[in-house]
């Protein structure tokens, strides 16, 4: 087995602990943006999709790679916009203060 996979495993373990630590105490208020924000972050799948399509040779690989890129791109932009829209509502600096 390639040494790179072991390196990736070490990295994965550290990343797992980081993930747990980071969101340990997130208030209920932010559960949706947290979920939607992490939804956006796994949009990194687009990078993998570009690589897959980028090195694809046969028409079948290209077709599936293309589908991967389309779906990955939807994940990225959709996830970003949804998160940004929700957070904009929680943003206090934009509110003009409540009614009297």
């Amino acid at each position, binding site marked *: 087995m390639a040494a790179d996979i072991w390196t990736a495993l070490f*990295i994965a373990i550290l990343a*797992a*602990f980081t993930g747990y630590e980071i969101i340990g105490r997130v208030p209920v208020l932010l559960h949706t943006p947290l979920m939607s924000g992490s939804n956006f972050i796994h949009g990194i799948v687009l990078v993998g999709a570009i690589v897959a399509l980028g090195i694809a040779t046969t028409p079948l690989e290209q077709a599936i790679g293309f589908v991967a890129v389309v779906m990955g791109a*939807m994940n990225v932009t959709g996830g970003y916009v949804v998160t940004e*829209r929700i957070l904009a509502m*929680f943003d206090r600096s934009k509110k003009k203060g409540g009614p009297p």
Partner: protein
Amino acid sequence: MIAWIGTVIDAVYVVAVIAFILGLKAMSSPETARRGIAYAGAAMFAAVVATFFSPGITNFALIALGVIVGGGIGWYWARVVKMTAMPQMVAVFNGMGGGAAAAIAAVELLSSLSNVANAGLSLAGAVIGSISIAGSVIAFLKLQGWMRQRPIVYPARQPINLSVLAIGVGFGIYAVFRVDTVYLLPFFVLLLTYGVLLTLPIGGADMPVVISLFNALTGIAVALDGFALVNGPLGDAGYAMVIAGVLVGAAGSLLTLLMARAMNRSIANVVFGAYGATEETGVTMVGTMKPIEADDAAVLMAYANQVVIAPGYGMAVAQAQQKVKELADLLESKGVAVKFAIHPVAGRMPGHMNVLLAEAGINYDKLFDRDEINPEFATTDVVLVIGANDVVNPAAHRAGSPLQGMPILDVENAKNVIVIKRGQGKGFAGIENDLFYKENCRMLYGDAQQVVGKLVQALKKS
């Protein structure tokens, strides 16, 4: 020349990963959350551009077309969709990520089936990615109302589902064993089928757990794809995917666990239990459900010192949040303290009620978690329950009830409880609500938006 480009690309990935971590970290506080998504967004953009210009990449036109088409659809859809449709939007975009992960794994399997380590990782990524996209699509259909939200059950469900999964995985392993891509087709078909079968029996009220779970699964699928890519020609993209994917997998798992715990159930019970498929029988309620008119309810609230509003999925369905905001403002103008009691699993996704109330312009200082607000009910004059049922059902304290042990909003402790409800039916879980029969409880029947509108009118008159 090539080496120089490679270094820049690697540096971009490193910076991107740091920005993802800091961005996610910033999302744990409302003051910094918006900055967080901006960091992560810039990082994502840089990583995508860097990958596009990586040495060895071909098919530029196809890639560009795919990014423009997919990105355009995602951007437009997310922009125009109503806030009330957010749970199904999150499900859809999550499903797209899972689908992309499965498709990447498919390309990997087609091109390097003979590399056993890589093929194994890709198979795992394909399994999880396929379940994630198929399950997310079913969740979307249920939440969108294009499929009924109640659990869809059939005989011998568990053995059938398990067989589909096992045979599907078997085909995948056999494909690697025989180094023959022809077995990959039944592999993918069966895995997608399993994702559908897994999600059909899960009811609407369990969606907060399920959406969060599929989000975590997609993260893991992405990480597995990353593992398979690391010893390929563009391996460093794989490391970025491993880190981001595992980060999401861990954060998502934790959120899923929190949601399941908020219902005092295990994740396995939520996913496999077909909860709410059968109605509770044999329980006879003592007392009667006592109706109240909107005018009387308005008077009761107008003369209260403190009113606590407990919203649920019924408020979301009726899109009553703007009216609720009007009601809260009116009450406050009359000197009544208004607070909102938010149960973690009220609605159809984690934090659903917070999003709707924020959309209506209600300041988040007025929103209180279950644990914060529960001690206050005893000194609260009126609790207004809007379209919530199971999360305020004191049956949770009754031995033998299916809800037993679920931490609820203890609204029954208030002096008066007014429940806005469409009809006399049971809650999602099919369980009688003890609250409705209590002496201090009054039922205000009707669509939440119309009824709250009537309350507003009555308050304006008084």
